[in-house]
């Protein structure tokens, strides 16, 4: 059971997508796991032949538990690993496509999801579908239940606040050049191919990280461990509540258009509960953009073991003085929350400066 983030302690195997004897290649999706936050497609780390399932669908096991054995090409069949098999639980008859919130509610209300028609994207069963299918129940006193999602976020954020000495830096960035570039870029494209400013900002963060790589790191074993790949994590709020941070792999190597496509794909799959395990496990820095909600400045909490979070607020037209002249410019507040164990304010300041510079030259992104 892979760790899909600092806030994951255990996962429930929903189903195997392969059979014993199947040949699999590194990166193939082989199983679906339910975490506190969502269903996740689990990718295999090694190519070979599926030899044995150790954990059966329905079983909830801790992170680190061996789920199956894969025999590499040329290897002879091995005995089962020395770990004790997890308790087997009867296999569900068929996969039911439902949001985690709907599953939880169904358990609470005693609704069989097999008989519920989903009205969400691709027929996903939503909370409202479960509510509609449930028999009327007597009104209960309003008790706020702590969802698995909320518990997971609480654990990660409490750990972050407890262990990470945050420092915060902020700057205002003139977005005139970036928005003008984006406007011209989008003017040539049909609506389905247009790029949002959010994608431009993600790409700019990745580019700035190439100049200040210390912020693209994990803090593990009491020391910073710089990460070679720049996988920008996108803080996404889910419509059913909660937060998830999937990664755009190698953001620095993508064009703005590719970054938009990757972001669009991630958001769509995050909201339908079909993220891949590597996308949840691999982010090396987080970007939180709350501009859509009118938030002017974001003061973020770092997602461990990362060492930095970049926040963006709303782009607001403001008076802007330059060369003795005052004009009106679209301005965004960019903030950096960083781990003081890994970097100092000086490097943090250099990062924000690089970010600013990058956004003044959008044609180079």
């Amino acid at each position, binding site marked *: 059971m892979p760790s899909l983030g600092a806030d994951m302690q255990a996962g429930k195997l929903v189903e195997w997508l392969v059979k014993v004897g199947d040949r699999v290649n590194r990166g193939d999706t082989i199983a679906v796991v339910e975490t506190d936050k969502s269903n996740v497609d689990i990718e295999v780390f090694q190519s070979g032949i599926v030899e044995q399932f150790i954990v059966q669908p329905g079983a909830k096991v801790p992170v680190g538990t061996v789920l199956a054995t894969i025999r590499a090409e040329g290897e002879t069949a091995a005995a089962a690993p020395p770990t004790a098999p997890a308790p087997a639980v009867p296999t569900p008859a068929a996969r039911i496509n439902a949001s985690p919130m709907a599953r939880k509610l169904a358990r609470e209300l005693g609704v069989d999801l097999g008989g519920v028609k989903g009205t*969400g994207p691709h027929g996903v069963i939503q909370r409202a579908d479960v509510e509609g299918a449930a028999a009327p129940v007597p009104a209960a006193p309003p008790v706020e239940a702590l969802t698995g999602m909320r518990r997971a976020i609480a654990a990660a954020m409490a750990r972050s606040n407890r262990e990470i000495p945050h420092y915060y830096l902020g700057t205002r960035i003139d977005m005139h050049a970036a928005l003008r570039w984006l*406007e011209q870029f989008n003017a040539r494209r049909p*609506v*389905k191919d*247009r790029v949002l*400013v959010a994608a431009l900002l993600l790409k700019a963060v990745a580019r700035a990280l190439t100049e200040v790589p210390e912020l693209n790191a994990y803090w593990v074993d009491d020391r910073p461990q710089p990460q070679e790949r720049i996988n920008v994590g996108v803080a996404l709020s889910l*419509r059913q509540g909660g937060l998830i941070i999937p990664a755009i792999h190698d953001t620095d190597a993508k064009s703005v258009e590719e970054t938009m496509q990757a972001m*669009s794909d991630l*958001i769509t799959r995050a909201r339908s509960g079909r993220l891949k395990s590597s996308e949840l496990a691999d982010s090396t820095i987080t970007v939180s953009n709350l501009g859509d909600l009118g938030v002017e400045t974001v003061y973020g909490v770092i997602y461990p073991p990362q060492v930095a979070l970049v926040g963006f607020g709303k782009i607001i037209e403001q008076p802007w003085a330059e060369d003795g002249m005052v004009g009106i410019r679209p301005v965004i507040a960019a903030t950096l929350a960083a781990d003081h164990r890994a970097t100092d304010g000086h490097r943090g300041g250099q990062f924000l400066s690089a970010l600013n510079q990058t956004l003044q030259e959008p044609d180079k992104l």
Partner: protein
Amino acid sequence: MTEEQIRTTIFEALRKIAPEADAHSLSPDDDLRQALDIDSFDFLNFLVAIDEKLGVDIPEQDYGKLRTLKSIVDYLSAHTTGRG
């Protein structure tokens, strides 16, 4: 195309991006994005759906004219005039 047909198309598009929201409860002058908690990504998908259904490719500079249900219906009515 009638206003009622346009409104139906808008509700279908909204149901896809905000399935838990009751778009029918919107007042004509409610701020759509605020009332349904729609972010810029959702809004872009809404515009893609409108383009697919009605063939109206709304230019970026007109996004600001599409804040309320009424303004969207008016805009789309003006851009689909004469169509079946």
